[in-house]
Structure formats: structure tokens, C-alpha cells
């Protein structure tokens, strides 16, 4: 620990001077450019610390002047209307600078002359200059929306200035406004500009075969997950994001609550947005950038009730870890992410049996493997808390996402993960108690999603492959269980076809139905076994999943699902694990 501190302190000392110089330079540039930058910003943006008081003052004066100008125009306009009404001569009093009313009445959209047109400055962005949160124009808009009848509407046949006004609601984001997209759970405006709270979740129910009960069909229900998604733009370029997740109804100690779920921080990070091509995500809990569904796992992103099978073991979604990354967009339709994270670990037992020394329980107590030929990597995630990781390795992952402009509707990605070591501290084989050495792990994934333009068809496909550096050091090959052994590699592939049917409008929204079929093959017990175990795989590691069903979207934010899944393995005596499930998902 002290060594680490020393290294850090040295690094800081080494880095401090040039970094300070750069910081000063950066601040100076910011100071100089801030005026210009803010001149073109949107009105609701808060002042940055780099903005100078003098600029604030001058912009406040400008703002005041503009307000006065607008008020003056308004008075003139109202006077003109009054006069016109008294004289009974319609459209004679259009303000100076506006086109003749007759012309506007002839337009198909009956666009009339616009009252402030003549005098409003051509430098149209000027109203947006005031970065003071609630500038004059927004106030005017609020006023207009609040009192749409304030300017007396003429009753004559020819429309005058007022009929042509755009009455858009004020911009959301800090001001009370009319908007269908609310930042707080989709129902309310945020009291704090930049703060939003979203949510997603899914409910599962139905019947499934329980392998532990010899494949007996059992009916059941699962409040699978409810997730709150707070996001706060601390500044426009520094953004906080988190996912707070409750699984299986949550957790409790009391017997009467009957809860055995989790409450967990699935994501928490702060992003520093710099340029389009390069942004930094500070160390936090983040998702590993592998495949599509691991990072986009909301229930509206896939059509089956359960997540696609490749993400239930080979990719242990929701796969998260202590991590930091860079990401950006390289070109139109091409973006990347590179991430360093705490490594997977080959330890699949209860958290409690880790020792205080952060090792596996000593021989001969034994422990369950994190990587196995029956569950793939499902139990291999590193813990995210309390410095309780069982090895020192840092993994590197990278992903390239593409949606080529020349191929509309197509999106895909390639991604890879590498860790130099998955073996936990104190690992041993269960036969002799000898220590197990290191074993690296590499994963490669490629996938695509293609919504064929102008048709309802959608295709998805994916291949994922995991390679182990030294299978002889994997716990599954040394745990005295001859059935769960692992070879040199594991892999899986899946293909899915879906069709989008519009169902028409019902109770005020347009519904869509998406029937789908997905086939998944995975082989978790390839050749290349090495270790102290006997090796007699039952064939359970080679699995085929046939999943069919449909998803109905009453709105894009809500999905009702039904799916049937048949699972076949090469183990002739393995109990069935088929299921018929319904699901409700939401994401907003």
C-alpha cells in the first residue's frame, strides 16, 4: 500500500509542473474563448465559472435593452390593433416592415405578417446570447404560452399579425414548460436544470422446468429488476450517471419479508466530455464494452423475456466492474471505447468464504469455480466493493461500433476483452492441494443488428469466443468434479429474425407487434482440457436454444412479451430447462 502511495506521489510530483502549466494555459484559453462560446449557446445553459463578471453585466444590460425593445414593440402592436378595431378596417395597421397582409392570407398556411419582424435584429442568435438561465426571449415565450389570448384576436375575415404567431411552448430544461419528454421519470419537470431520473425494469412470470427438481414444470413470478437512472449534467461537459438496481424484489433480513434479491449500484461514473473524438470516463462502476446487450440491456432492446442466451454465461451480463475508459466518435457512424477494468476472477463461491486476506478459503475447504463448463463465466465477475478483489490483474477491453451511412438500418460492433490473469489468490487444486498458476482470458465478440429499410424485417447475429491461456490452472479442471471441465476455448453464436407489425392506434398510442425467432448454439466444453480432474464431460456443455415468441410495444417505452424456449444439450440424461414465460418491461 505504501509502495503504491509512493509511486503515486512520485508520479504526481513528476507531473505536477507541466500539468499546472497546461492547466493555466487551458484556463486562459477558456477565459478568452468563453465569451465567444457563450455568444452562441442556448439560453438555459448556466454560466460557467470562466465567464467574467463584466461580460455578465454587459449581457444583462443587453438583455434588459432587448426586453424594453420587445415591450415597446408589443405596445405599438396593441395600439395598432386597438385603432384597427375601432376603425373597423382590418389589416390596415400591420407594423412597418411586415409584408402586406393580403399576401400572407393567400399563403396556404395563412402566414400573416409577424409583428416584431421589422425591428428584430438580424443577428438572430442574439437572444440566445444571455447565458443567464432564463433570458428575455424565454420569458416572452412563457408569457405567450401562459396568456395565448393576451393579444386580442381580430374577428374580421382577414387574419392579422396575431394569427401568424408561432406559439411553441417554452423550452424545457429549467423553466416550467409543456413537453412530452419529462426529465423526472417521464412525468415531471426537473427542479434542477440538468438533472433527470429515468427508470427501467422488467417483470417475469410463467412456467419453467426446474432442473434441480428433475425438470418438473413449476409456475412462478419474478420482480426481475427495477432500476433507477439518475443523471446530472454538473456542467455541460461533466456528467454524472448512475444505475441503482433492485433485483428480485430487493433484499431484507426479516423472515416475513421473504426477499432474497439484491440492491446494487450497477453503474456509477462521471464523464468528462472533451471533444467528439475523445472523452474520459473517470474510474467508477461501468459496464464492460462487449457485444451489444451488455451495455444496452434494457428490456425494450431485445424481444425475448429473458436476455439473449449468449449474455447469460459466455458474456456474464450485466457485466460490470471497477473501470475507467476513453470513448469517442471517430467518423460518421463509427465510435469506439477503450476500457481498463478489474479482471474477471475464477471464483464462483459465496462472497463470505473469501478470507480477510483476500484469498480463496484454504485447502481443503474447497470453493466453487468462477469459470466452468456448465455455467461459462456467469460467476466470474469481480466484486465492485471494499477492495475485496481476489487478484491484482487489470483487464483491457475495447469496442468499435459502426452504423455505416451507406447501409441504412445496419449497426454492428466488434469488441474484445483481455485479462492477463483470472486465478484468485491462494487458488489450489482439490486433489493434492497444490497451488494453481496464472491463466489469462481473452474474449472476442462480433455482432450486428439490421433493420431492413422499408420493410418490417429485422435480423440480428452474433458470435462470441473465449480463449483461456492455461486451462490447467482453471479451478473447474481441478475441483474434483469431472463433469464441469473446461477446454482451451468456449464459443457461442446466435441468429435472430424478427418482424415489426404496426398494430394501429389503440388507447391513444400506436402499437407495434414483433414476433421473433432466435437460435443460439454454444459449446462450453471444447477440446484442450488440462488439469488434475478426471475428464468425463457429459455433453451438457454443448447447448442449443430455440426461442420463439413476440413482443408488443404499446409505446416504444413499454413492452409486453411472451416467449417459449426449448433447450437441448448433448447430455442425454440432463433434466429439461424449457420455459414458457410472459414479461412486462419498461424504459423511460
Amino acid at each position, binding site marked *: 500500500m505504501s509502495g503504491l502511495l509512493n*509511486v503515486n506521489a512520485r508520479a504526481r510530483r513528476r507531473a505536477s509542473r507541466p*500539468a499546472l502549466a497546461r492547466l493555466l494555459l487551458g484556463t486562459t*484559453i*477558456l477565459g478568452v*474563448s*468563453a465569451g465567444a*462560446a*457563450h*455568444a452562441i449557446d*442556448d*439560453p*438555459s445553459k448556466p454560466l460557467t465559472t470562466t465567464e467574467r463578471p463584466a461580460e455578465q453585466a454587459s449581457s444583462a444590460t443587453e438583455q434588459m435593452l432587448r426586453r424594453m425593445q420587445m415591450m415597446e414593440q408589443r405596445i405599438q402592436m396593441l395600439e395598432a390593433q386597438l385603432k384597427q378595431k375601432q376603425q373597423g378596417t382590418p389589416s390596415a395597421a400591420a407594423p412597418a416592415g411586415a*409584408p402586406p397582409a393580403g399576401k400572407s392570407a393567400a399563403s*396556404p*398556411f395563412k*402566414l400573416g405578417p*409577424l409583428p*416584431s*419582424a421589422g425591428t*428584430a435584429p438580424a*443577428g*438572430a*442568435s442574439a*437572444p*440566445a446570447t444571455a447565458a443567464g438561465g432564463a433570458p428575455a*426571449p*424565454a420569458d416572452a*415565450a412563457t408569457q405567450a404560452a401562459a396568456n395565448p389570448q393576451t393579444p386580442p384576436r381580430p374577428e374580421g375575415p382577414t387574419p392579422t399579425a396575431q394569427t401568424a404567431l*408561432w*406559439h*411553441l411552448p*417554452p*423550452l*424545457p*430544461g429549467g423553466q416550467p414548460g409543456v*413537453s412530452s419528454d419529462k*426529465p423526472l421519470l417521464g412525468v415531471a419537470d426537473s427542479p434542477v436544470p*440538468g438533472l433527470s431520473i429515468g427508470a427501467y425494469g422488467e417483470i417475469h412470470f410463467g412456467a419453467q422446468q426446474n432442473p434441480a427438481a428433475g425438470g418438473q414444470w413449476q409456475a412462478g413470478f419474478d420482480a426481475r429488476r427495477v432500476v433507477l437512472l439518475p443523471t446530472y449534467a454538473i456542467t455541460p*461537459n461533466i456528467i454524472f*450517471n448512475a444505475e441503482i438496481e433492485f433485483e428480485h424484489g430487493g433484499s431484507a433480513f426479516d423472515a416475513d419479508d421473504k426477499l432474497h434479491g439484491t440492491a446494487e449500484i450497477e453503474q456509477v461514473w462521471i*464523464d*468528462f*466530455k*472533451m*471533444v467528439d473524438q475523445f472523452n*474520459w*470516463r473517470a474510474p467508477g462502476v461501468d459496464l464492460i464494452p462487449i457485444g*451489444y446487450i451488455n451495455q444496452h440491456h434494457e428490456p*425494450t432492446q431485445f424481444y425475448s423475456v429473458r436476455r439473449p442466451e449468449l449474455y447469460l454465461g459466455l458474456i456474464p451480463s450485466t457485466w460490470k466492474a471497477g473501470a*475507467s475508459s476513453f470513448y469517442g466518435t471517430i467518423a*460518421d*457512424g463509427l*465510435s469506439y471505447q477503450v476500457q481498463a477494468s478489474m479482471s474477471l476472477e475464477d471464483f464462483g463461491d459465496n462472497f463470505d468464504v473469501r478470507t480477510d486476506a483476500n484469498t480463496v478459503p484454504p485447502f481443503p475447504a474447497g470453493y466453487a469455480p468462477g469459470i466452468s463448463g456448465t455455467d461459462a463465466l456467469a460467476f466470474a465477475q469481480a466484486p465492485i466493493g471494499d477492495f475485496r478483489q481476489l487478484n*491484482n490483474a487489470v483487464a483491457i477491453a475495447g469496442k468499435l461500433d459502426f*452504423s455505416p451511412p*451507406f447501409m*441504412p438500418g445496419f*449497426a454492428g460492433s466488434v469488441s474484445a476483452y483481455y485479462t492477463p490473469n483470472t486465478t484468485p489468490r491462494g487458488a489450489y487444486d482439490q486433489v493434492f492441494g497444490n497451488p494453481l498458476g496464472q491463466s489469462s482470458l481473452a474474449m472476442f465478440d462480433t455482432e450486428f*443488428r439490421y*433493420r431492413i429499410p422499408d420493410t418490417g424485417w429485422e435480423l440480428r447475429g452474433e458470435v462470441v469466443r473465449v480463449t483461456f491461456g492455461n486451462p490447467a490452472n482453471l479451478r473447474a479442471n481441478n475441483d474434483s468434479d469431472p463433469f464441469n471441465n473446461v477446454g482451451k476455448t468456449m464459443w457461442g453464436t446466435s441468429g435472430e429474425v424478427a418482424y415489426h407489425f404496426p398494430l394501429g392506434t389503440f388507447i391513444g398510442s400506436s402499437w407495434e407487434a414483433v414476433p421473433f425467432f432466435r437460435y443460439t448454439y454454444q459449446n462450453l466444453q471444447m477440446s484442450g482440457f488440462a488439469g488434475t480432474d478426471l475428464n468425463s464431460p457429459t455433453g451438457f456443455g454443448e447447448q442449443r436454444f430455440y426461442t420463439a415468441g413476440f413482443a408488443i410495444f404499446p409505446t416504444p417505452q413499454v413492452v409486453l412479451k411472451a416467449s417459449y424456449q426449448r433447450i437441448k444439450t448433448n447430455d442425454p440424461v440432463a433434466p429439461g430447462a424449457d420455459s414458457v414465460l410472459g414479461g412486462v418491461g419498461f424504459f423511460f
Partner: protein
Amino acid sequence: MTRWIRWSAPAALAISISAPAHAVQYLSIAQAQRQAFPGATFAEVQGGRVWKAESGGRLLGYFVFDRVIGKHLYIDYAVSVDPSGRVRRVDILEYRESYGGEVRSPSWLAQFVGKTAGSALAVGQDIRNISGATLSSEHIAQGVKRILLAYGGRGR
């Protein structure tokens, strides 16, 4: 342990020389106006929201600034409408979120050109869904539709 330093040093460097403020803003309102109606003069119609574009006294169309929420954060965008109520251009002025930035793709935005208040403007129908940017694409399409209705429905 030096591995962490090796990885975080470039980040520290990048932050300390980070670009001027609001690098994530792609276009200012004025820039977007110039792109949509080159050479036109702009007159504000509704404060901070709507501008009329004219050239030599001839109406070229309207420029509307709007804001919708993406997944969590607001997207600033602008819709330019020609006098007949057809979309001339849609531009993303500012995108704040980490994911879903694909809505900035020019080829995706080009789909809005020519749309009117009568168009479906529904993702999955006349506007392509963007995988990974579902909510952003939905909300922008809805926003454009709202603006066209506000324009097209006027005086009828």
C-alpha cells in the same frame, strides 16, 4: 500497479489541455441558421425559438430551435421549414449524452428532409430506428412532428 498510471496519465494530460468550453456543442444557433438558409437574414418571431429567414424581402422559411430529452439529457436541435411547411433541414446543435450520439449522423437526419405535418414521422416507419439510440431517435422524430404541426396547423 504502474499499469493504472500508464492508463490514467494520458487522460490527465487530455483534461489539462482540454478543448475550449462546449466542445460538445456542434453548432451554434447562428451557425445552424447559416447552414439552413445561406445568405438569408433572420428575424426573430418567437423569442429564442423561431426565426423567419428572408432574402431580399422574399420569405425563405422558418428556423425553429427546440429541445427534446434523449435518454437522460436534453438534445438541442433545429428544424428549418420552407414556406410550404416542408422540412428543409434538421440539425443537432448539442448532444450531451455518452451513448446514442448516432442521431447526429447526417444520413439519419437527411430522412427528415421533405417531411410535412402530414407525414407519419414515426421511428420504424418513415424514420429508421437507430440501434443503441432508440429513445433519442424517437424523441427527435416526435419533436419534429410537433414543430410541423405547430406550423402547418396555423390559421386552418
